[in-house]
Every structure is written in C-alpha cells, then in structure tokens.
C-alpha cells in the first residue's frame, strides 16, 4: 500500500514519523495539530480584515459620504455607493468563508478531532495538508481583488445575477467578481477535502470503547457539519461554474435576455448557503455543550436528544433554502412549504437551548472566560433564533427581507452565536494547543466589553429593520422616513468602534500568553474528554498510549468517586465501566 495512504500504523490509529526540518514541522506539516493552528492564525488575521471592513460600513451608515481619512483616494476620501456595496460584499464574504467556517471546521475541527477520538492523526494527513494549502491561493486571489482595476466584487456575498453575471455593471463587476468566484472555488475544494477526512476519521478511527453515543458533542457537531459540507458545497461549485460560463463563455444560464433565469442562481446558491449557516453554527453548539458541562461540573442534560437535534437541524437544513427567496415571485404554496420546514427547525434548536439551560441548572458553576462566552452563546443564540422565526413567517418576511432586521438576525446568530462559541473554544483549548494558560482577567474584560458593545451595535438593527431601513444601501437617509434613524446609527457606530477595539484585548492576551502564559497542565479544567488525557501541548503522535474508553464524555459529579469529574478513559476498579462496546451500527 502507498506509504502516503498507509496512515493506519501498527496500532491502527494512524500516525507517521515526527518531522525534523523547519519546513516540515511548521509550514508543510501533515500534523493535524499544526494544520489546525495554521487555520486558526489565518482565520484570526482575516477576522481583523473583516472587522475593519465592518468599521468602514458603520462609518458610512453614521455619516454618509463623509471623508474617511486614509481611504478611498480616488474619490477624495468619500465612500461612494459602489464602494459601499463592495465593502458589504467583502465583509460578508470574508467573515463567512475566511473566518467562521475555517476557524470552526478548519481550526477546531482539525486540532480536536483526532485528540478527542483517541487517534494519532487524521485518516489522511497529506490530504489534510493540501486542504490548508489550497486556502492560500484562495486567500491571495480574494485579497488580490482589492488591488485590481475596479476593485473587489460588489454584488453582495450572495452574488446575484444579473449584477454578478455581467462584467460592466459596477466597477467591481470585472476582474474583481471573477477573482471572487475563483477564490470561492478554491475554498470549496479545501472544504471538501476536509469533510472527507473528518467523516472518515470520526467513523473509522475511534479508540476502543468510544462508541457512537459516547462521543462528545463537539465531535458530533463537527461530524454532522462535515456531512453538510460534503453534500452542499458541490452545489455551490456547480453554480459558480455556471456563473463563470455566463461571464466568460457567452452562456445565459442566469441572464434573462438569453432566456436564462436569475432565480436559478438563487436556488442553487441557497441550496448550499442555507446548510452553510448550519455549518457555521453547529460546531459552536458542540463546543458550547462541552464547555458548559465542564464548567457546571454536571453531565450534559439530555445527551441523546442533543445528538438527535443536531441531526434534525442538519437534515431540515437541506429543505428550507427557499426562505431566502420569499420575495422572488415564488408561488405562495411553495412559500408555505418552506415556511413550514423552516419553522420546524425551531424545535430541535429549542431542545438544545433548554438542554443547555438544564445543564446549567443546579450546577456548580465556574465562571471562567470560556464559560462566560458559552453562556453568552446560549443567550444570544436565543435572540438570533427568535428573530429568525419572524423572518420564517412568509408574510412578515415580505416586509423585513433585505432590511436591517435580517442583518441583525444574521449577526446575532453568527457573532452572538458562532463567534462567542469560537471565543469559548479559544479560552478552553488554548492551554491544550499551546501548553500555556491565557490570562483569565483579560479574558473576562474582553468578554464584558464584547458582550455589551455587541448588543449595543446589533440589537437596534431590529428596530431599524422594522422601521423599513434596507440593507446594502449607502445612504438610507435620502428617504425622508429613514432620516430620523441616523442618530441611532451613529450610536451603533460608536459602539462598533469600541467593539472592534475590544478585540485587541483578546489578540493581546493571545499573543502574550503564547510566550509568557503560565505553563498549562495536561488537564487544567479537570475535564473528561480524551484530549485532556495527554500533555499540553500533546506530543507529535498525540498519546503515549492510545486510551481505551469506558464511558461517555459527561460523567461529572459522578457518585462513584470523590472527584467531581470522571474522564472517559479512566479505569475504575470494582465499578461497572461498560468495557463491552455496544454492537456495531449503534
């Protein structure tokens, strides 16, 4: 068998000899931990860019067409409407494809999966390396668009044709839009490689005793997310290719004047992009479950319903995409089917929410930075989810579609949800990744500032949306009925500046702790899952001896022992660890 694919070493757990050269150790590494950290650093870098773009957007909405020092030299420092729509396009695109998805799936997925399942590496370490390195041309192509003539794509992150299909609509419609498409094709390829690796690894490389219903929720979430990635991303790929053909080969798939239909793009795009939002939230839900259980020192409430709820959210997520298209001229009958399926997703989401609350209830709660962020996830996700229910109701959506209501909803689930989940994961697993502790006090300050300013920026968006303020509009106040909203927008902008600056605390804490943080023990949080059964950071092949698993991941406050945590791999004499694994297919 090829040595490249002979990743299953003698003990059946994968693994490969430790690299020696600098290039092999840190740059072209096949080690999932290094690759995960590579994804982490590049995602954090892009988060700063995406955040800076957000500051520009907020500036425009507070003071439309006022000079912005240092920017927009060709228009005297003024952000023209065509520049504004380029800003919103790139903000959305970067945050979705270069921050949230790579950090949850690429960084946490890569780093955690082999460790949490007791494997030495992924099933295909070389494929893993390629999945990171194909992101590099994707990054460069996307960034290059800022410097080409006409600038970046400006058709929204949703890239609807005809605007996106014709090369002479707005400045960004030329090379910028083409580069955007090419970049996303590369990102999609990376995602697919990762999905194949993750699914194979989680299904086939678990340690002995780690049966399906003993997996931690972080792994369940990453697993189901990978299935979403596997099946939804190729449809986006097909849509992007058809768009490229319309742009460059004279076809008219989406162009009405050749018999084509722009709504076809919307269907194909949203068939991917709706599952994409679950790709962005499910891993954060998994992380939240694990963090909350650990710091409440209590078993996760309702483990099986939590698992089935993740499956239900993902499964339903494939049949709701039309709720992004209620205003596209869709027949009301079809609208009703999409409305119904969308409303149904509230059910498993609610089960999860109540189960997080149930986990907290009566717990011995430790308010660490990780825990604060995880609890905030639950609260903000509730708001984001509930505002989504408004949008799910077709008659209501007719009014709030494409207003700032939707922008508020998006940011409550993606920032209030996913990003707080990312923060929780960072504070929780930083010790395992880097062998040092982050500063808890700075963590709490970061949390407090972020939480408060986040709500100040985004909650008013529901007021703006209900008042009729459209999104992607460079100067809403040209409409008399919206002019009174400028003051609120200015307040939001000031809050946004503080929100952005507050992230520097996290970056500072992160950077400082990398070099000067307190040395971390193997299991500083006294948690149960397998990644804590090895050193911080783990050795090259993860475990001295592959653990054997005797129980689920949530045995906190177990009556069997004095300690309030009972790791999955710990042998208990005289107790009844179920060493007999459950039958295959469980």
């Amino acid at each position, binding site marked *: 068998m090829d040595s490249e694919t002979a990743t299953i070493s003698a003990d*059946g757990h994968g693994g490969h000899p430790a690299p020696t050269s600098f290039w092999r150790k840190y740059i072209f590494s096949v080690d999932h931990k290094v690759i995960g950290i590579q994804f982490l650093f590049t995602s954090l870098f892009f988060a700063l860019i995406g955040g800076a773009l957000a500051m520009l957007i907020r500036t425009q909405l507070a003071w439309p067409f006022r000079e912005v020092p240092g920017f927009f030299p060709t228009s005297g420092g003024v952000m023209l409407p065509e520049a504004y729509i380029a800003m919103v396009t790139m903000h959305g695109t970067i945050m979705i494809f270069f921050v949230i998805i790579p950090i949850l799936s690429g960084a946490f997925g890569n780093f955690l999966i082999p460790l949490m399942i007791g494997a030495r590496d992924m099933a295909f370490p070389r494929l893993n390396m390629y999945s990171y390195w194909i992101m590099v041309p994707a990054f460069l192509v996307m960034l290059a668009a800022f410097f080409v003539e006409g600038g970046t794509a400006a058709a929204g992150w949703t890239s609807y044709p005809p605007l996106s299909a014709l090369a002479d609509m707005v400045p960004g419609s030329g090379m910028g839009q083409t580069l955007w498409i090419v970049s996303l094709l590369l990102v999609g390829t990376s995602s697919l490689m990762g999905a194949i690796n993750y699914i194979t690894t989680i299904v086939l490389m678990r340690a002995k005793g780690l049966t399906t219903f003993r997996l931690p929720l972080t792994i369940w979430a990453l697993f189901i997310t990978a299935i979403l990635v596997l099946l939804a991303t190729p449809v986006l790929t097909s*849509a992007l290719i058809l768009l490229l053909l319309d742009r460059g080969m004279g076809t008219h798939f989406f162009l009405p004047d050749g*018999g*084509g239909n722009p709504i076809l793009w919307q*269907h194909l795009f949203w068939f991917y992009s709706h599952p994409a939002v679950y790709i962005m939230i499910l891993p954060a839900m998994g992380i939240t479950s694990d963090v909350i259980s650990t710091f409440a020192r209590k078993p996760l409430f309702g483990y099986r319903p939590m698992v089935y709820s993740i499956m239900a959210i993902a499964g339903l997520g494939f049949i709701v995409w039309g709720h992004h298209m209620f205003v596209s001229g869709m027949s009301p009958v079809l609208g009703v089917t999409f409305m119904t399926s969308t409303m149904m997703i509230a059910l498993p989401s609610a089960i999860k929410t109540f189960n997080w609350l149930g986990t907290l209830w009566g717990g011995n709660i430790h308010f660490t930075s990780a825990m604060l962020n995880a609890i905030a996830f639950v609260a903000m996700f509730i708001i984001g989810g509930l505002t989504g229910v408004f949008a799910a109701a077709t008659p209501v959506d007719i009014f709030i579609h494409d207003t700032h209501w939707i922008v508020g909803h998006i940011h409550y689930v993606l920032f209030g949800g996913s990003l707080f989940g990312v923060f929780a994961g960072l504070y929780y697993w930083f010790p395992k990744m880097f062998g040092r502790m982050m500063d808890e006090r700075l963590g709490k300050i970061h949390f407090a500032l972020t939480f408060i300013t986040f709500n100040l920026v985004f909650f008013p968006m529901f007021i703006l949306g209900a008042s009729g303020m459209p999104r992607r509009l460079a100067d809403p106040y040209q409409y008399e009925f919206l002019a009174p909203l400028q003051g609120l927008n200015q307040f939001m902008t000031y809050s946004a500046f503080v929100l952005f600056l507050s992230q520097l605390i996290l970056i500072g804490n992160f950077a400082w702790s990398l070099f000067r943080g307190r040395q971390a023990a193997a299991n500083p949080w006294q948690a149960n899952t397998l990644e804590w059964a090895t050193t911080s950071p783990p050795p090259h092949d993860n475990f001295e001896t592959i653990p054997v698993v005797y129980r689920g991941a949530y045995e906190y406050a177990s009556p069997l022992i004095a300690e309030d945590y009972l790791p999955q791999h710990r042998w208990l004499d005289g107790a009844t660890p179920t*060493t007999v694994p459950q039958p295959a297919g469980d």
Partner: protein
Amino acid sequence: MSGTMSVGAVREHPLPEGTEQPFPGLSTEKFAVWLFLASEVMFFAGLIVAYLTIRYSSPSWPVVSEVLNVPLVAANTFILIVSSVTMVLAFDRAERGEAQFRYFLLATAVLGTIFVTIQAVEWAELMGEGIHISTNLFGATFYTLTGFHGAHVSGGVIWVLIVTIKAFRGRYAKNPLGVELVGLYWHFVDVVWIILFTILYLI
C-alpha cells in the same frame, strides 16, 4: 478534588489497544472514495437540475434526435459500458491474483480515451453546424454537461493509466485496493453518463 490525571495511567488496564470497528474490513480509503462520490453526485446534480429547469421552462427547445448524432453517441455509450466491464474484470482478476488484470486496466484506459475522442468528434460536428456553447440555452446546457462529464472521464483515464503503470511494476500483487478505488470512480463516471445519455439525447 484530586490532582491531575497521570498520563500513563491507562497502561494498567488489561484490554488491548485497538480501534472501534463499526465496519470490519472496510478500509478508510474505500470509505473516503465513496464520500467523494457522494459529493460528485451533488456536483452533477447542480448541473443537471439547471439543465432540467432551463429546458422545461423554455418556450421552445430543439428536437434532440434531429440535432444530435444519437447513433454515434449510442455506440459511444456502449463503449463506455464495455470499459466498465473491463474495469470490473480488472479488479476481479487482481483480487484472484491473476496477472492479466493489468491488461484489463489498459483496455479500460484505451476505451475511455476512445470515448472522449468520439465525444470530441461529436462536438466538432455540432460546432460545424453552428451550435456553440453561446448560441442558445440548448448549446449552453449541452456543452456544459457533456464537457464536465468528459473532463471527469479524462481525469479517470489518467488515474487508470497511473494505476496501470503501477500494476505493471508489480504494485497490486498483494493488495488490489488501488484497483478497486479507481474502479469505483470509473463506474461512477459511467453511471453519470447513463443518466446524461438519457436526458440529453433520448428525451
């Protein structure tokens, strides 16, 4: 609360190291190839759905039996089916340790090349009649679907050739997994053509 868990503590348990085996005998590579094929199904689905919706909401569409060279392509379809047979025979013989499997692999690559060549001839014929990808939606959907399928066949031919070369170097004598994997991909490409032939040329 007691202190940190000692990392080497797991040594004392009596059970052997190993992995959970939910599907005994199933290799990670084969599992992964099937996952890849699932993603390819979705890719072609996007293109096929685009074709179907475009065609069935178009006010008019050419009569395909008049525009397309159905006999030629029917023969080409047969050639691709034969290549699937040679491929599965290659794997069958490789599993039995019979060295002739290498020639079945070679035959598969040859037949695949013939398929793409005949497709190119068909394309040239059509373009000679003035039907290009940009001519109308019929052209757009036809060339896109057959083009991406042809690209997949071409990629498959390259993969088969690589496996053939390795086979002639004695590679799969002990373990024919590599032959099985390329076979799965090849059959998949055949299945896609079975669908495309029907919906592009016959309906």
